[in-house]
């Protein structure tokens, strides 16, 4: 012991470190651009009111499923008037269906259950069903959905 066999000069170490840093930076940049290429651009969200029918069309007790601009919607009369529920289960994104006899929304994937006001009452869903705003203008019913 005692003799330190230092074959690497300071200059050599510094130039090596510099090279490594540069290479790492370059490759990191390349990797980042790679990931950016693979992530599609997020489109700006735009909402629009879309005519879905007249009050008479929607007066039944049964749920009416509809797909509007990619949003899957179930129209249903709730205690507080007509509501447009998103069919997307708040659990893991399956589609809920309306069970008329039980008056419940059921998600078949992991047995999530919502009551007729969209409130999660059983199974894994963490929150009530999402709703789309429903607007009534005269006799016409509009729903506000996201459009691409």
């Amino acid at each position, binding site marked *: 012991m005692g003799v330190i066999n230092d074959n690497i000069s300071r200059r050599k170490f510094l130039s090596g470190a510099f090279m490594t840093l540069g290479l790492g930076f370059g490759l990191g940049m390349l990797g980042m651009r790679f990931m950016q290429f693979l*992530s599609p651009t997020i489109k700006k969200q735009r909402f629009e009111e879309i005519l879905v029918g007249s009050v008479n069309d929607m007066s039944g007790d049964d749920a009416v499923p509809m797909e509007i601009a990619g949003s*899957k919607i179930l129209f249903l009369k709730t205690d507080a008037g007509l509501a447009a529920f998103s069919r997307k289960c708040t659990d*893991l994104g399956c589609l809920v269906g309306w069970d008329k006899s039980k008056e419940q929304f059921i998600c078949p994937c992991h*047995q999530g259950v919502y009551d007729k006001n969209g409130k999660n009452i059983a199974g894994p869903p963490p929150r009530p069903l999402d709703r789309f705003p429903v607007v009534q203008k005269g006799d016409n019913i509009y729903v506000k959905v996201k459009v691409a």
Partner: protein
Amino acid sequence: METAIEEIKVKSLKDRVIDLIQEDVPDYLNKFVYCMGATPLVLFLVALATGILMTFYYIPYPDKAYASVEAITHDIYLGWFIRGLHKLSVNLMIFTLFLHALRVFITRAYSAGELKWLIGALLLFTTLGMGFTGYALVYDQVSYWGMTVVMNMIEEMPVAGPAMAYLLRGGAEVSEITLLRLYDLHTKLLPVLLILCIAAHIAAIRIIDFAKMKDEKGVHLFYPEHALKVGLVAVGIFVVMVNLVMIFPPAIGQMANPLEVASNVAPPWYFSAVYKWITIAPRQSALFALLLFSALFVLYPYIDRFLVQRGFRMERINIVLGTAAVSAFAALTLWNVLF
């Protein structure tokens, strides 16, 4: 350096290849439970060959994907046989990998061979990834809703979850881009990763050597003894597989319908336990438990060493843990299948 050059001069290439292959194999590998590692390798080769064949007909685009799988299954000459072999080989591969991991776990063969375990764990997870991406390609109801659910599960993972889900899906919703990405993963990235893992796993066995078992001292030659035995196992598996495919030709579910969830979208058996688990347990804690379990599984050799140093008798603990894990897996799977 000089001696290495001398060695190259002295030894012919043929000799060097023989040296590479011809290594002593412990006698305990004659028992079937101990040579379970070669079985998934054979099955992987079957899956690889049949998978390459199917890429000549499969079209990774939503409506056409289902039609092309249907064509492979019903119209193309021997298509049902190729697809049946592919599906069965992957199922058996996962099953035998589970058995292999269990055997290594119970006999504590990972101690003094942590690298083998780490690579093996990566191999197992990659194979499960192959299973998932594979059944997503069929584009029936189970595929579509499986994709949707798994992507949302990834999204719920902490920190990198949302970004990863977005990257995998290629957007905010499952679309044709998602199918294309899963196709790319299934036919390009994951197979390459899998082949690298297998090569590294075998290289690690060569470098670190086979695990030392108590009271097992004898050795025999790799060739012809061990190689022929593996060949015999391969032939046996193949005979069984051909028969199983004949008796149970591959089926195909209903075509994916983004507007209606089928009443049964249960995944294949190897994900049944996880599926049941996330259904019965509260979501966040269920996902956290899965991540924790995976981490403990990967790091188990180090946990083992840590506990051994503190005087725990790991032989017994491993038997208890192994039995518990198998029982839990079997119970959750049966629960999912029967109810």
